[in-house]
């Protein structure tokens, strides 16, 4: 089927008005040799067929509702209030364009302004942009920003406990630049601060630390900041925004940039996307921030009104001198986060974060009581994820639990050599005591299984 209203009769009439005899006259400029190909696509489907065939494709997946999952590692299963879908699916938000025409876009603009303000309140930072693609690309963008704001420096220091995919993105993003990326080792699950001090020098544009880090451990951000500041490097905190309901916000430990993945804020896991990257900074860096920013202003009659602002930073004005090339971003996902934060409110965001803390500790307790299993980093504080050392390769354990309909977590051998028996377990507020008990039972059975 198609979505084309004009009929053949309409089109013939229009061609006449245009003054051509046939459509081919309009595209005569296309060399004949280019028009000879054959496009081999599946036959067109009507809507009932789409519902049926793509529905069948979807049902070949096993969604999280049919499993009990302890996977996290950058994508988190959280409560999503029903009001979010009901609101963001409204055509006026969903099918609107980027709000360049402020007068016809006050809805989107005000909501993005509110998003920015909410994210600032959550992170304790001064400035938020209106979104980036996702947490990983936000890391890449933060490097561009840091290098741009420190044009003479060419080193980026990064913890090896930053999400392995984010580190890969950082390297990919900066592949065309003449810079050096230095990775810091960890000790007991957190970044080695001595190594940090050693690696951070006058040539360092930025130091990136994630907290909670990829192992789930909360980093000593205050101390790290104190080591970074004297060297003049930008301190980039990569944070889980939902954790900030309970954990100390980056604005309080002196981060210059606080960035991360906004998915925990009301966005479905959706096999990895669309998500939303957030990027916040101190006032100082506002003219370097990448991405769209909405400002509050007035109209010619003095009424409060909103518009995109500081556009001179952006590619459509500044072209090759822009801080970033981002154009289309993730507004609708930022809007989800905005609605999520508004619905949670001051108390809700604390409560949900605390529930995550409690559930993960409850699970960690339960698992460490199973013979053969132990917390890998028993001294590091954690939020909703932690590493468990298993009595067998973690992948084997996971395969066994899958048969019980449980996804036990992420085997870390995939990303860290030498961690083949280590399992990253995430426990959010979506898990109840019964789920944790099932996990523990299943783990202890798996440990004693042969093959």
């Amino acid at each position, binding site marked *: 089927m198609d979505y084309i209203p004009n009929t053949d009769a309409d089109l013939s009439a229009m061609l006449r008005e245009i003054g051509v005899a046939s459509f081919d006259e309009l595209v005569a400029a296309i060399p004949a040799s280019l028009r000879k190909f*054959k496009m081999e696509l599946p036959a067109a489907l009507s809507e009932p067929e789409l519902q049926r065939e793509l529905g069948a494709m979807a049902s070949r997946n096993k969604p999280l509702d049919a499993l009990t999952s302890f996977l996290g590692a950058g994508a988190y299963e959280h409560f999503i209030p029903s009001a979010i879908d009901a609101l963001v699916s409204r055509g006026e938000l969903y099918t609107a364009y980027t709000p360049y025409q402020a007068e016809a876009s006050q809805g989107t603009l005000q909501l993005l302004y509110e998003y920015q303000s909410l994210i600032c309140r959550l992170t304790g930072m001064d400035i938020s942009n209106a979104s980036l693609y996702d947490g990983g690309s936000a890391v890449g963008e933060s490097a561009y920003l840091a290098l741009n704001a420190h044009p003479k420096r060419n080193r980026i220091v990064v913890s090896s406990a930053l999400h392995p995919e984010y580190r890969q993105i950082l390297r990919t993003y900066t592949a065309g630049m003449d810079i050096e990326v230095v990775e810091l080792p960890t000790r007991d699950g957190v970044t080695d601060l001595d190594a940090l001090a050693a690696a951070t020098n006058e040539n360092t544009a930025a130091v990136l630390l994630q907290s909670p880090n990829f192992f789930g451990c909360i980093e000593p951000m205050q101390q790290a900041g104190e080591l970074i500041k004297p060297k003049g490097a930008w301190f980039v905190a990569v944070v889980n925004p939902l954790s900030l309901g309970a954990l100390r916000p980056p604005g309080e430990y002196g981060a210059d940039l606080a960035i991360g993945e906004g998915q925990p804020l009301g966005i479905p896991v959706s096999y990895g996307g669309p998500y939303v990257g957030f990027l916040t900074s101190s006032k100082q860096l506002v003219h370097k921030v990448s991405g769209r920013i909405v400002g509050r202003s007035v109209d010619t009659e003095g009424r409060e009104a909103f518009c995109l602002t500081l556009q001179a930073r952006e590619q459509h004005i500044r072209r090759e001198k822009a801080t970033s090339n981002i154009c289309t971003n993730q507004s609708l996902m930022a809007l989800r986060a905005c609605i999520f934060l508004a619905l949670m409110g001051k108390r809700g965001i604390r409560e949900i974060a605390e529930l995550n803390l409690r559930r993960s500790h409850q699970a960690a307790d339960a698992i460490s009581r199973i013979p053969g299993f132990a917390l890998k980093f028993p001294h590091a504080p954690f939020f909703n994820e932690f590493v468990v050392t298993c009595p067998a390769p973690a992948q084997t354990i996971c395969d066994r639990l899958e048969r019980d309909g449980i996804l036990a977590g992420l085997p870390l051998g995939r990303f860290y050599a030498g961690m083949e028996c280590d399992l990253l377990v995430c426990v959010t507020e979506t898990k109840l005591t019964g789920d944790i008990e099932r996990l523990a039972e299943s783990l202890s059975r798996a440990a004693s299984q042969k093959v």
Partner: protein
Amino acid sequence: MKEPLIFDLSSPGRRACSLPAFDAPAKPLTELVPQDCLRQHDAELPEVSELDVVRHVTRLSQLNFSVDTHFYPLGSCTMKYNPKINDRIASLPGFANLHPYQPASTTQGALAAFDLLEQTLCQITGMDAFTLQPAAGAHGELTGLLLIRAYHTARGNPRRKVIVPDSAHGTNPSSAHLAGYDVVTVPSNKQGEVDIEKFRAVLDEEVAAVMLTNPSTHGVFETNILEVAAMAHKVGALLYYDGANLNALIGLARPGDMGFDVVHLNVHKTFSTPHGGGGPGAGPVGVKKALEPFLPTPRIVRNAADGTFFWNYARPQTIGKMRSFYGSTGILIRALTYILAHGSEGLRRVSEVAIINANYIKAKLKDLYDDPFPQACMHEIVFSGKRQKKQGSSARDIAKRLLDFGFHAPTIYFPMTVPEALMIEPTETESRETLDRFIAAMRQIAEEITTNAEMLHNAPFTMPVTRVDEVKAARELDVNFVKREP
């Protein structure tokens, strides 16, 4: 009635959500994590009811223009209708509720969907392989240029320069710069195409890539494309295709056949995924065989033995990753749904009608608005508001005035090569009747300008706000609401 800020609605103790109680003995938090890790003061989020939020967002949404309510003749943006079936499919739990690290055994449907999408995009563009990872057009450009860099590097020299026409979208030079290249701008000729002689003048063996879009942002087909490609390839440069304008060409011609080596697509333009007020979109990147080894990791592979799919991470020459996980699944599923709805014939008709619609507008307005490129246009038409500017109204004035007629503004001041540019792209999903009403509005505005150009400076008159003070917004920066002045 002005909708207050969400913060204005806040009242202490009010709540929209409640959460389950913790159903096990609850220790003090400080026994779980040290005090100095904990937040001392609650984040000052608003305290509102669910109804407050619903009413607030619903009312605000009504202040927007959108495809679902208005015609958007927005050049370069392809604001076509976003079919509702796309959303239904994307929100099936089987797609929306998968964790990216689930075992592939539990995600075969999603992998099959991705694989099918890659294959169809290859067919549509004439490329050999696609990555679905990039999150938008600009992201695709950066990906593509990093692929080109990796390709040249593997051949011993990443090269220094990227050639970009003066009519190019801002993301092109910006992406080239981020990929570590110097940008060389090549001017357009009178037909709005790349000036071949000037192109020859800047082309040398330090050129890594030539970035073009075809039809160009002047809305015209690059008739010399085969020659340009041959010239570029001769010096070892690669040809990059900015797919923003593919809506002109599906089923009519393929960038792969034109000689392009790397292509990005904007599924939120050509393949009907919604713009969402500025995203999310997706920007899949296609390449010719020689560049395939460099594509971002992981890649979908079909196990020939049993037909199952898996993710392959073992890609020694890969540029790495452009974003977390695999791509914007929810968006890609929408694009796939759209493609499957059309089939080959249907997609060709998309472009045919898009082109006819644009030429119809051109035919009906070219007497009143200057038409810098007299040949037939493709899917969009760029007028110049020069004449109206002389009469006292700018392209911006015209754009703002159109809002009063219930039409979104065209893209204005882009491409930068056309003074007072008004770039109009009707797309195939608008009916002749809608185009006629738009044409009538444009004609009336032209008439208004000859009689009362002054009036247009104050347009729009019927929007929720009058013109917004952008200068004040930038000068007295307020991008984070602290609190109301009393």
